[in-house]
């Protein structure tokens, strides 16, 4: 289990970016980190990856403080997938995936047969085996993201840290990635992902952290945390969380969805406008509750 307790972080001589951040992540669950730009999501991930050192508070991995771990030791437990990776030089897909094995190699050791086997297995698992010889640079965004997941899995870490894994992907690729996240969580990986799409919290996560201005607003299951009120409070725009009945799937199952309310013609619809914060209609959008009667028809 990864436990983050009263974490505080600031960049040199500036106001704190993270204040009193506390939540935890267990194996087999996916925690979704929601928050507006500048809320400190990426900073939090960088603290988790041992790239930044927090000012106070602790991050423990199965009871062990990660600040006391070496970069290498940390990498054996935590793997990272960034928003989008750019490589200056044309590495092949297999070479990129094999980079995930470096944390397990001794200094001066060559890539072993076992490393190659692991790389081949994860590529097979993610269905990208046939592109192993291809140039990473020429792949599409969705394919690249798959390669990044393969590299993270090749690292054989139990926890995955995903920074907006679906950003800049088309609709089908987003769903492909979300499916995979669910599958990996079911297999026992502990996953922490940031996203700008609150719907993903319902689709893929078991717990949600709402982060605003460096502090945790809420932490809990998506049903309890991702509500119209909380999202409106988080993003300072009116959002309606409602339930959609999935007619085509047969049994009339439902799925919660988040719908932003656009105010057409209202020019003052800017994000973060201080005037708006006190507007009662702003934090309570005219959203008529839940239930199939009001549900959107899909």
């Amino acid at each position, binding site marked *: 289990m990864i436990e983050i307790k009263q974490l505080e972080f600031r960049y*040199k001589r500036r106001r704190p970016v993270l204040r009193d951040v506390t939540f935890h992540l267990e194996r087999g669950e996916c925690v979704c980190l929601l928050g507006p730009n500048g809320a400190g999501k990426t900073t939090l991930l960088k603290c988790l990856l041992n790239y930044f050192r927090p000012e106070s508070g602790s991050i423990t991995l199965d009871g062990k403080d990660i600040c006391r771990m070496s970069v290498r030791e940390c*990498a054996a437990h*935590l793997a*990272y997938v960034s928003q989008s990776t750019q490589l200056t030089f044309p590495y092949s897909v297999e*070479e990129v995936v094999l980079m995930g094995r470096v944390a397990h190699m001794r200094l001066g050791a060559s890539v072993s047969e076992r490393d190659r086997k692991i790389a081949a297995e994860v590529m097979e698992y993610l269905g990208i085996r046939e592109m192993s010889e291809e140039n990473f640079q020429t792949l599409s965004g969705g394919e690249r993201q798959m390669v990044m997941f393969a590299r993270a899995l090749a690292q054989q870490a139990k926890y995955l840290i995903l920074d907006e894994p679906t950003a800049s992907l088309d609709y089908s690729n987003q769903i492909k990635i979300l499916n995979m996240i669910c599958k990996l969580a079911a297999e026992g990986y502990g996953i922490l992902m940031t996203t700008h799409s609150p719907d993903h919290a319902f689709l893929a996560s078991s717990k949600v952290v709402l982060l605003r201005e460096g502090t945790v607003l809420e932490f809990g299951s998506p049903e309890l945390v991702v509500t119209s009120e909380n999202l409106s409070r988080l993003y300072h725009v009116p959002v309606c969380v409602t339930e959609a009945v999935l007619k085509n799937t047969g049994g009339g199952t439902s799925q919660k969805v988040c719908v932003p309310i656009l105010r057409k013609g209202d020019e003052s619809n800017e994000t973060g406008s201080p005037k708006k914060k006190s507007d009662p209609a702003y934090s309570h959008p005219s959203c008529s509750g839940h239930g199939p009667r009001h549900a959107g028809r899909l």
Partner: protein
Amino acid sequence: MAKERIRFDLLVAGLMGLLTICFFISFGVGSYPVSIITVWDVLRSRVMDVAVTWEPAVEKVVFQVRIPRILLGILVGGGLAVSGASYQTLFKNPMVSPDILGVSAGAGFGAALAMLQSGSWAEIQLSALFFGLLAVVIANLIGSICGKAEITSLVLAGIIVSSLFHALLSVVKTYADTDSQLPSITFWLMGSLGKGDMGDVGMLLPVTAVCLTVLFLFRNQIDVLATGEEEATALGVNVRRVGLIVILTSTLLTAVAVSICGIIGWVGLVVPHIARIFTGVKYSRLMIVSFLIGGFFMLLMDNIIRGVSSVELPLGVLTALVGTPVFALLLIQSRRRSAS
């Protein structure tokens, strides 16, 4: 996979063969004509009994002039190429050359300063080495003050330091005696293998061996650096430590080479690009192939200088004359390939 491995082994064997042939041919090139068969006999005579059929001057030419010059050519060319390949991977920038952090500018100033004081050849070398390393240390200090985004600020710090030492060099040039000192400074800045002796080989060989070994040990980590600092950290690579090791070894390789041979440009920039065409971008292979091609290229250039023209053209000038069109060709080809 196995096929790729065999292809690489064949490539290395081929390049080594080429380098060996070039090595022996190089003995026969120069203003004093020596046939290759004689060279072979002279070399053999050191370890076995061979009937002496040559004049004593031949032995002197082979052992005191040509052997050091040829060995220096291989070591300097190979060292500069590996240094360039390492920096390009570290800085994630194919346009980077070994003097990115100001080694050459520092060394140039150091050498000029020693010449201004009418220093001996050894003093000039030492001064060049010292100021070359000093320039890189200053660049690193500026970079580390800038903080986290170290790699980018380091490049800018290198530009600052280079400019500073270029300015200081101009100051030295202004004070230099225009009849003797200024020409020797100018020629030193254009590079030459001509002044090296066996003592220089004795210094360059161990430095090159140690630096290459260290870089080879860290070869997998260096590849990971190409993904950027954040991701490399997440992949278990201590970016600061490995980055420092790359900077230290590459700087040492360049500084020692420059202090012996003066400033020789383009090799460190162009050769890694040629090597990538043959072997791909993986650092473990890139460094080996870069070293072999770099050594071969430098030897070839020096042979042209010694063999073709009666006036000895400066080495740095020839590498630039050959390097620039080759680089332009590579650029056009790579743009065409990415367009199609």
